[in-house]
């Protein structure tokens, strides 16, 4: 690589950084003030690109294609997305400010599903390549190489937005209110600041930035339906690396990540000490490696401040202990197991298959519920332990280990992964902790995705079937039922054990727990390991029920599914995971059969459930029966 090409790659990195910053700025702004982890930010970005395309096209029909139609379309897109953002806030999120923070995440996840199907219905399936930006369509020459003018334009937009936002926050009354609300929400409200209007305004501003970022991307990439989730993952990473709520931090983080990626590509395939390194392949996980390193060194991100007011992940009501299972619960559980054991005799083979899926999902969700509910530690990357468990089982069985031994290795795999990752994670708290779990999950995912000789790479491994004795659907179901019932009972027993109480103490008041002689980090670490163990066991059951595994078992959507199940069921509800897993799996299966637009349907139902049962279905049932 010559010096000139190094500089050119630096420029590429800068323009990518600018684009990345624009998306992340809105996210960090929204989080800083409202504490909402807006999962739908990528969807707003995608909407920005689509609306800019549509508006630009419509305007071109009216006033002719040119600078005016393009830039006006861009502005319309950003404004339209701002309005959509405000609507989401007013109609949906406003009703959830009293609910656990995580519930807002799930609600925005519902929005993701609806937006994706809505865009498909409105704009069609084909990718839409917009025009090049008028005025910046060509190139200029640098070291004899042509460089797109639009790159230069993007490079300036980022810093302009950075300065404008900084001025807004530091120099205006609106900015003072924003800062007041992000410092201490309750005090700001007590001083007469109209929180509701402020939140709507901030959310709209954040959405505006997302829409603008999407629209500005149009000259570089076609509007397409795959823009949402990768974008929001990137934006999360930038936001967290920079420090949640810090706009300059987001800028710095975007720079570091974009430059790292462009340098990985520039380095190409190299040989270091006789070993070949394909640096471009690292781009799959570069940002997550950066995030893991930054968080290990600076738990609040690069420029983040420790939260002034203590943030909690659970409401007082949700902190109630999981009830000691009483006689009635034992009767319910017994009846349930008996009913489930009778299912195969109905003669509907598919019901058995679906029930197996539900049981596996319930155990997976229960392990996450244990971590979040009892441990107070939110994991956005719980699929890592599920997936590692599945891979351990699958790799073992492919190496001719008998199935029972392979299945027994699954929890070991989950445990090992959780012991290693947990050691780092328990040093953080709140969203930072959650994001570090996500980083680890993505790193594991990209290893599984590329380690062809062991994991089968992107294809995964096939032929992971149980032995003939268990291969009948009903037989495997019986095994799954037994394992899951024991797993759920064990998790329940654990959360009622002295260890479980110590864990709750550490969650609710680390200081007092420490004063009582509880080693808080060690207790949380153990909880992490246990959650990993049970997730791994669920993963092993999953592998043999499907006969194959692929990196998808480790991917973000699986982690999100588990979160949705836990929250639908109720964070501390006794039968929560089982209820959540049943409702979610069954709904998804049912909707996919009756409508092409099943994603949107699922999104709408999730929103309705979240609005109707902010404490989860299990929580609502518990309250009703208490009266």
């Amino acid at each position, binding site marked *: *690589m010559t010096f000139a*090409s190094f500089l*050119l*790659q630096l420029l590429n*990195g800068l*323009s990518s950084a600018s684009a990345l910053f624009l998306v992340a700025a809105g996210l960090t702004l929204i989080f800083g003030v409202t504490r909402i982890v807006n999962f739908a930010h990528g969807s707003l970005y995608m909407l920005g690109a689509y609306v800019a395309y549509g508006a630009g096209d419509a305007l071109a029909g009216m006033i002719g294609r040119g600078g005016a139609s393009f830039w006006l379309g861009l502005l319309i897109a950003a404004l339209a997305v701002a309005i959509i953002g405000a609507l989401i806030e007013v109609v949906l999120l406003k009703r959830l400010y009293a609910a656990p923070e995580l519930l807002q995440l799930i609600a925005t996840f519902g929005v993701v599903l*609806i937006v*994706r*199907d*809505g865009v*498909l*219905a409105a704009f069609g*399936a*084909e*990718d839409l*390549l917009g025009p090049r930006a008028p005025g910046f369509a060509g*190139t200029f020459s640098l070291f004899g190489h*042509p460089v*797109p003018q639009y*790159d230069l334009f993007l490079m300036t937009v980022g810093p302009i937005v950075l300065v404008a936002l900084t001025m807004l926050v530091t120099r205006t009354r609106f900015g003072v209110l924003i800062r007041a609300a992000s410092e201490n929400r309750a005090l700001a409200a007590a001083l007469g600041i109209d929180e509701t209007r402020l939140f709507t305004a901030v959310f709209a501003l954040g959405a505006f930035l997302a829409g603008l970022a999407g629209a500005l991307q149009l000259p*570089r990439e*076609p509007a397409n*339906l*795959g823009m949402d989730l990768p974008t929001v993952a990137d934006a999360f990473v930038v936001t967290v690396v920079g420090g949640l709520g810090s706009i300059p931090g987001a800028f710095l983080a975007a720079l570091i990540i974009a430059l790292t*990626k*462009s340098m990985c*590509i*520039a380095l*190409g395939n190299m040989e270091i000490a006789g070993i070949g390194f394909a640096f*471009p392949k690292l*781009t*799959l996980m570069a940002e997550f490696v950066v995030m893991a390193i930054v968080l290990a060194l600076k738990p609040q991100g690069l420029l983040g401040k420790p939260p002034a007011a203590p943030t909690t992940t659970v409401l007082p009501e949700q902190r109630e202990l999981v009830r000691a299972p009483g006689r009635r619960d034992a009767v319910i559980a017994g009846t349930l197991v008996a009913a489930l054991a009778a299912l195969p005799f109905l003669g*509907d*083979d*598919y019901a058995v*298959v*679906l029930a197996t899926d539900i049981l596996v999902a319930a155990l997976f969700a229960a392990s996450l519920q244990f971590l979040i509910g009892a441990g107070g530690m939110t994991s956005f990357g719980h699929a890592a332990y599920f997936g590692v468990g599945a891979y351990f089982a699958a790799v073992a069985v492919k190496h001719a280990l008998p199935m029972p031994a392979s299945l027994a290795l699954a929890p070991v795999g989950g445990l090992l992964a959780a012991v290693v990752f947990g050691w780092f994670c328990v040093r953080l708290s709140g969203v930072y902790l959650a994001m570090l779990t996500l980083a680890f999950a993505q790193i594991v995912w990209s290893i599984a*995705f*590329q380690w062809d000789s062991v994991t089968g*790479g*992107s*294809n*995964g491994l*096939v*032929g992971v079937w149980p032995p003939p004795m268990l291969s009948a*659907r009903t037989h495997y179901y019986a095994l799954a039922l037994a394992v899951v019932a024991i797993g759920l009972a064990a998790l329940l027993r654990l959360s009622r054990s002295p260890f479980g109480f110590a864990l709750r103490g550490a969650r609710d008041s680390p200081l007092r727990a420490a004063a009582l002689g509880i080693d808080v980090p060690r207790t949380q670490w153990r909880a992490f390991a246990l959650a990993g163990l049970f997730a791994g066991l669920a993963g092993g059951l*999953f592998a043999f029920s*499907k*006969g*194959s595994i*692929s990196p*998808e078992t480790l991917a973000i959507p699986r982690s999100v599914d588990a979160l949705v199940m836990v929250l639908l069921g109720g964070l501390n509800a006794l039968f929560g995971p089982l209820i959540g897993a049943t409702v979610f799996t069954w709904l998804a*299966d049912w909707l*996919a*059969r*009756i*409508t*092409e*637009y099943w994603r949107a*349907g699922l999104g709408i139902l999730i929103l309705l459930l979240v609005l109707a049962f902010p404490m989860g279905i299990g929580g609502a049932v518990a309250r009703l029966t208490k009266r």
Partner: protein
Amino acid sequence: MTAVRIALAALAAVALPLSAQTIKFGELNSYKVFPAFLEPYKKGMELAVDEVNAAGGVLGQKVEVVVRDDNGTPGDAVRVAEELTSREKVVLLMGTFASNVGLAVSDFAKQRKVPFLASEPLSDKIVWEGGNKYTYRLRPSTFMQTQMLVPEAAKLGKKRWAIVYPNYEYGQSATAAFKKQMNVTQSGGLVFIELAVPLGKIDPGPVVQALIDAQPDAIFSSLFGPDLARFVREGQLRGLFKDRPVFNLLGGEPEYLDPLKDEAPVGWYVTGYPWYAIATPEHQRFLKAYQAKFNDYPRLGSVVGYSAVIAAAAAVKKAGSTDPEKIVAALSGLTFVSPFGSVTFRPIDHQSTMGAYVGRTAVKDGKGVMVDWKYADGKDYQPTDAVVRTLRPQ
């Protein structure tokens, strides 16, 4: 809007119970993950079902395709495959898009002893390393499509090749196949510079600059979809393609060429589907019927979906029964007429001889088209039988 659609769909599901006297094909695919390809695919299937039933159906019964979304994941795919086989009692499974899903369903078919017609996944493993008795594959594989481009590439006599590919099975096997075949066809001294990019997330600036710095004589790419569009735009701006021949697998498929409109690259060597220019009677008949039914032109997905249903119907007809073992036996050596002409499922590895159109890209009336094309019949782009036997578990 969506709610209305759901309500209507639910109503339709309740109000129109299909007669029990149908032969059901179970189709599962990643409709929401790859809609650009799979919406036309679904239309192709609908057309084929109409035609088969208008001609009296199969074994005296109407044919019905039961469609399920596999959500793009092997886990969900296996679940809907279970549903299709156990509850819907389909006589065979068909569909799938991504290699990992295709391989998982293929393995499921082997386990549950159900015929599976893998219509779309390109992975070589489906018929070779992972091949099994119950699985047949319709589309030309990654190997075959690469093989179709190699003769032209070798003719150019270029020594230094840059290869850019999406970093997963399809891109990796295309790259491996290209390198191997080039070394066989064009003797000696070839240099390959490889650049893997994350699927759907190519960062075009650095990638194009890195390729320019590598100073290749020619480029081989297996990019598609949004990645391809970004690569083309950035590459044209930065002059990457100036005086460099470019070969792009799948680049001529309307799904990926059409979005580029007047910015479609000129002179690239691609595999694809020039629907506007194929004058064979089989294709003309298909084209007219498709346009009459949908008031839209067919994409490659339409041809694949259409052909898959025709092939499945032909297999059941030949088997004379809905017995899975008989259908599997019937698929071996089955010949049917696709819009691309006559196609046979090779008994040796269960790969169909469906081919692809190979040609060069051009821009005409503000649209990307293929010119100087010819039909590459799949039967001519296979390894020798001896090689196939070493690749496939016997």
